[in-house]
């Protein structure tokens, strides 16, 4: 079994102090490996977003350790942490978070350029990522000139550009219609099958079902987990499902 791309080890996150103390995550352990899409479900306030923020280095745990590609985020300087976020971690947000004044290709190349890559090389990598998502022809258009589904594809391209191996997606289909949302999830799966690791936060069971593993949080604790059968094609052999 491959080493985990993301590891949360006995991670707790407490907000506030004294009487106002709220435990958002409680001693949580989670490993996500290359080729694995893990969906996180749970009611509002169960700790889903906190988990994603900690995994992406946007927040620090009160105790425990977060490792990305085997490196602990806790002991890193601000600059080192920012570099890991640019090189290893990609985010997909519900509202896309694209820069409207930049073209599609410039949006996708942005994290590489921020990391010091020359514009020409960054654009070449951006075009590869856009090609994988079958939207290379949109490269020189602006975000406002493409559809919602296309914008989310751009956001995914930006999340995976430069072979970043950890994709963190927060309700990435929330703003899309059912069919377009499904296309986005298929693309996320294809990316995972190509070697990335991904964490998908969603409140929709139908979307979570695209994951290899679904974990369920309640009150900051991981309380349930379900996995795909090893061989779902056995359902195909016997179609007497109804």
């Amino acid at each position: 079994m491959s080493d985990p791309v993301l590891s949360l080890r006995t991670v707790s996150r407490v907000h506030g102090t004294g009487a106002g103390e709220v435990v958002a995550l409680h001693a949580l352990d989670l490993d996500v490996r290359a080729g694995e899409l893990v969906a996180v479900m749970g009611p509002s306030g169960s700790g889903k977003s906190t988990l994603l923020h900690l995994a992406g280095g946007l927040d620090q745990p009160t105790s425990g350790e977060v490792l990305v590609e085997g490196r602990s985020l806790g002991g890193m300087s601000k600059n080192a942490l920012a570099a890991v976020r640019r090189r290893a971690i990609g985010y997909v947000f519900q509202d896309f978070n694209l820069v409207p004044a930049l073209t599609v290709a410039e949006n996708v190349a942005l994290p590489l350029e921020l990391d010091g890559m020359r514009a020409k090389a960054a654009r070449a990598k951006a075009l590869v990522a856009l090609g994988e998502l079958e939207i290379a022809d949109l490269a020189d258009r602006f975000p406002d000139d493409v559809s919602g589904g296309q914008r989310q594809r751009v956001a995914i391209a930006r999340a995976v550009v430069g072979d970043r191996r950890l994709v963190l997606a927060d309700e990435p289909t929330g703003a899309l219609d059912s069919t377009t949302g499904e296309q986005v999830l298929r693309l996320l799966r294809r990316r995972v099958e190509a070697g990335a690791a991904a964490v998908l936060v969603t409140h929709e069971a139908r979307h979570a079902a695209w994951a290899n593993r679904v974990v369920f949080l309640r009150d900051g604790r991981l309380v349930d987990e379900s996995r795909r059968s090893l061989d779902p094609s056995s359902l195909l052999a016997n179609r007497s499902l109804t």
Partner: protein
Amino acid sequence: MSIRQGLLAMLDNGPRYGAQLRAEFETRTGATWPLNVGQVYTTLARLERDGLVEAEGQDGAGHISYRITDAGSREVALWFASPVEREAPARDELAIKLAFAVTVPGLDVRTLIGRQRTATLGALQDYTALKDSLYDDPDELPWLLVLESLIFGAEAEVRWLDHVEARVARAAEQRADGDAPARTFSGQQVSR
């Protein structure tokens, strides 16, 4: 849909013999409804008796081909034009089990709900993996539609389980606070 309606709808596309109808029926229902050829011929005999189809004669291989009559075509049009009526709901084993569970003192209903949700999510993941594998094959459209019906059903069950969990938790809080609202004889809650 009955076998009768299915056969008539296929014959409305042109004459066919029994074995053709059986194979096409299975394809069009996503192979979720296997028929034997005896069911096909029994149904054809009844359709012929009712004047909705008529035998055309035999081909060289001895197959008896059937064609639809005008009355049969009218019945097909009426069937497609009419919404499917909701039958009396079947007894839902899970709903009954949970309804029973909340009346058993000391039973950990939350754990029971969690286990059921895990099982249903697992099924939903398997259906979705299968759907993903069939996605790009246009010949699989009938089966995809049946599969998606199962997916939406499982999703609804998960959402309902979330709702039950929240409702059970609220009821427990009310009991703990000792301020459960009074009830009228009709079961409606009233403020005290």
